[in-house]
């Protein structure tokens, strides 16, 4: 039961990462034997989307400084980048905390 909920959580994180990347949820990824591969790809996708959002917001900010971009677009892009980064960091912290909990588990 407990194992099931952990894999469920990892699957949910995974689908969150997929939705960052804009690919949608893949059906065959729901349960995998190795959590390490899951977490690596999860972080990769999440960080990639955060970096993309950050780049977009920086590009728009640069254009806004030279008077080419709409300030409202800049606000939307910066907000989006901020929320994406917060989500990635929160998921990373949560999964690493779970990993540490397992490492510290007395055998």
């Amino acid at each position, binding site marked *: 039961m407990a194992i099931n909920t952990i894999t469920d959580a990892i699957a949910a994180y995974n689908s969150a990462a997929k*939705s960052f990347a804009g690919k949608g949820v893949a059906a065959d990824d729901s349960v995998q034997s190795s959590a390490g591969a899951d977490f690596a790809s999860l972080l990769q996708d999440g960080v990639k989307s955060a970096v993309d959002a950050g780049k977009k917001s920086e590009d728009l900010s640069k254009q806004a400084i030279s008077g080419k971009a709409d300030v*409202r677009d800049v606000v*939307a892009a910066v*907000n*989006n980048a901020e*929320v994406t980064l*917060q989500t990635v960091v*929160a998921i990373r912290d949560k999964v690493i905390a779970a990993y540490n909990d397992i490492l510290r588990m007395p055998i």
Partner: protein
Amino acid sequence: MDDLSKASLVAVSGMKAQSERIRVVSENIANAESLPSTPDELPYRRKQVTFRNVLDKANGANVVKLNKIDVDRSEFPKKYDPQHPGADANGYVLAPNVNPLVELMDMREAQRSYEANLNVIGVSKSMLTHTVDMLK
């Protein structure tokens, strides 16, 4: 993209539309005294904006766009000013059909709508942030 991010996008489109409306209102106010320089010329004609609902296919949300900037076809009021170069034989000059009170109300409406859209951005962002904070 999730619905709360889409909500921000839609609100941004509303803010852009209202900014353009403010621009048109300011043109009207600035030109409220733009009288003709000869008797056969016409004075400044008041402009007004219309909005339109557009589907943003890339994001799957309905946003608002400026439809077009139309002119107000109402009659020009006449002002008695025989010294003016635009005055006709009876001493009347055609004045722009801009009513500063109407422009003021239009501007106030645009301001309120802009603020409402700002609040939508703030609320959707705080909802997203609070949801993500649940993970911490």
